[in-house]
């Protein structure tokens, strides 16, 4: 898979992150908006009252659907075809592009209006359309801004999150050919007027798909601006791009998703517009496309099926909550991730969709494994565990960093035996004499360079704990208190409980 324009500005995660870390505008804008969204979500969860139960229900729906994806996908396709939809399957990004272009060519299309499609970003479809002379216009406000800037989205649901309103006003002023005030009402008003004309003249409307309902062959879109409704009703031809995992079994399941998704994404109780589309325009309909296509895209998704460590990745409902909760994303924004999808989900998805481990970059290392993503996820995808699995797969396939390979071998040798560990501490105490001052090490060289750029390193004390143990233990045993019967009973109870299979478990098991 090509990394596309997302990698612009740096070949490695570190290089791309450095660009972001040195961009005060970007960091301020990203912090401001992710915080607003994160707090909105927390408030919505609290107001909902039974969030954890609904979250578990959402997870079960997704687990069930993905476990039986072949069944539900067939059901969806049969029903969609019965509704008069042309359904296409694309195994690769290239196939999906080819199908889209052939429809555009057959329709002699001059322009395509687009909405709500991260999949089309994944396919780099706009460039392909432009290459055959078809104008592609993004109509979500954020996407429109990004398209004007010649960039790619830096957030799954807020594509222009890294820009502040003054930067946006500059871009839109250039587009308008007149100076527009940096007032959100004025800016949005300009884009609304400008896009109205585009909707009316477009030959094809192209969207993504939030959920595809198997029982009726319908596709559902969540949006806040109303433009997706324009895109799906005005042009004569409609193309929906959907990842093969977007399926849910029924409309009843949609209720759960409609509860989880907007709250997790923006803190809204309901999205402004929720459109359910079941086939092209019927004779009795006032509007809608004459011809409707759905392109079901694999592009690496089926690699996760049957993989016990990664299948849950397909449960993702693309709400962006993990990005808003992530302390790394907060500092580096989305472009540093180098792929179409950013944040924790992107760090896992980008390599996972790519079978060739040799081409994985370092993105899975750009996480402190704090677990905020897992905690925020409305369907409980253990992204922090998956990041570790990705690192392991890279090492096991022989693509580990050479210095690290040697270091970890040394780690295992020295730390699997306490005698050797003791020796390491003793050597450390000798070594630190040369570099420490007043109980601290401030030297910025070798392996300490990165650490000591932001911190001082403590020195090793005269005696390690194990060296003090003999004296401490003797002293304690000398003046030992008797254990109270209550505490003794509690401890015995805990042991008994454990034997019955009780006890305490891992938070996410």
């Amino acid at each position: 898979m090509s990394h596309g324009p997302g990698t612009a500005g740096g070949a490695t995660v570190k290089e791309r992150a450095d660009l972001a870390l040195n961009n005060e505008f970007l960091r301020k804008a990203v912090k401001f908006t992710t915080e607003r969204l994160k707090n909105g979500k927390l408030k919505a969860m609290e107001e909902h009252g039974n969030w954890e139960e609904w979250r578990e229900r959402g997870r079960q729906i997704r687990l069930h659907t993905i476990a039986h994806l072949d069944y539900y996908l067939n059901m969806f396709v049969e029903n969609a075809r019965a509704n008069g939809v042309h359904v296409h399957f694309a195994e690769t990004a290239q196939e999906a592009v080819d199908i889209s272009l052939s429809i555009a060519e057959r329709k002699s299309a001059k322009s395509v209006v687009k909405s709500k499609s991260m999949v089309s970003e994944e396919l780099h479809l706009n460039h392909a359309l432009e290459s055959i002379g078809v104008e592609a216009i993004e109509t979500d406000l954020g996407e429109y801004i990004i398209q004007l800037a010649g960039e790619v989205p830096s957030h799954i649901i807020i594509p222009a999150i890294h820009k502040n309103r003054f930067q946006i006003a500059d871009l839109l002023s250039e587009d308008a050919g007149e100076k527009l005030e940096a007032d959100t009402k004025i800016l949005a008003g300009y884009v609304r007027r400008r896009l109205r004309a585009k909707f009316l003249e477009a030959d094809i409307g192209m969207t993504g798909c939030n959920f595809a309902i198997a029982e009726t062959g319908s596709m559902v879109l969540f949006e806040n601006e109303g433009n997706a409704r324009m895109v799906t009703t005005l042009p004569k031809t409609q193309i929906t791009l959907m990842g093969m995992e977007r399926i849910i079994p029924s409309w009843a399941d949609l209720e759960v998703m409609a509860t989880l998704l907007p709250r997790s994404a923006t803190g809204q109780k309901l999205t402004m517009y929720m459109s359910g589309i079941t086939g092209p325009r019927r004779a009795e309909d006032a509007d809608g496309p004459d011809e409707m296509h759905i392109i079901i895209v694999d592009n690496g998704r089926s690699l996760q099926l049957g993989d016990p460590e990664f299948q849950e990745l397909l449960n993702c409902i693309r709400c962006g909550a993990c990005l808003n909760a992530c302390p790394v994303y907060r500092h580096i924004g989305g472009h540093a991730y180098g792929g179409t999808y950013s944040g924790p989900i992107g760090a896992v998805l980008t390599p996972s969709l790519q079978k060739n481990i040799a081409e994985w970059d370092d993105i899975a290392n750009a996480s402190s494994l704090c677990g905020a993503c897992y905690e925020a996820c409305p369907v409980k995808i253990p992204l922090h565990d998956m990041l570790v699995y990705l690192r392991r797969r890279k090492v096991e396939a022989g693509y580990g960093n050479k210095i690290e390979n040697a270091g970890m071998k040394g780690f295992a040798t020295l730390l699997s035996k306490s005698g050797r560990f003791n020796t390491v501490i003793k050597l450390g105490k000798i070594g630190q004499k040369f570099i420490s001052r007043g109980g601290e090490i401030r030297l910025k060289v070798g392996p300490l360079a990165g650490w000591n750029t932001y911190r001082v390193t403590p020195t090793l004390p005269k005696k390690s704990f194990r060296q003090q143990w003999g004296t401490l233990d003797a002293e304690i045993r000398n003046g030992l208190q008797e254990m109270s019967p209550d505490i003794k009973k509690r401890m015995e109870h805990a042991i008994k409980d454990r034997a019955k299979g009780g006890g305490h478990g891992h938070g996410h098991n």
Partner: protein
Amino acid sequence: MKVSLFITCLSDAIYPRVGEAMVRLLARYGVTLEFPTVQTCCGQPAFNSGYWKEARATAKTIIDAFEDSDFVISPSGSCTGMIHHYPKLFEDDPAMLERALALQSKSFEFTQFLVNVLGVTDVGASFPHKVTYHPSCHGSRLLGVKEEPMALMSKVKGLEFVPLPHAEDCCGFGGTFAVKMSDISGAMVTEKSDHVKETEAEVLVGLDMACLMNIGGNLRYRNEPVRVMHLAELLYEGVK
């Protein structure tokens, strides 16, 4: 009953005072910790970096060390959390898997043991200082240790608790992450220290010396006079 101290390599080598505080505090309840000297590191640096073969070597040492213990208590939610990963590490080795599960079920982070097993929240300590608390990610999110330290601190006489803004944000340590992605980690710890400063607390307390070494190291670098301690140290100092 055999209650063992899993000291963790960091507290063993750099912060022995944390182990000492735990030992002395628990002795007040007649709980004598024993210390199997064959223990080393939990293996987390290797595990998190993807070197599972190497992680298994140290994990096996830990499993051996605590084979006949009834309780295994550590001053780190992260290292206890790593023990919770052992079953995954040995999922293809039924004999080791069983031993890993046994160790997991008897392993506790210090405040988990004190509050949930022993039922102690008031240790009778007095600590008349302004204190803020950083909840380390692995302890709070993965082990679920959230209420325990709060319960303990609420009973300390004279302790003025100041909530840390954005407390739930990671401090940026992340083990090898701090070395591999040092500038991202640096941005994270700098922001964390900014928040500590905002509280105007005299003391920053936590349950994980790795995170505290990170935040404390940044505060020292900036010459901020905030005292950084493990909660076990604070409680022991308060009863001494």
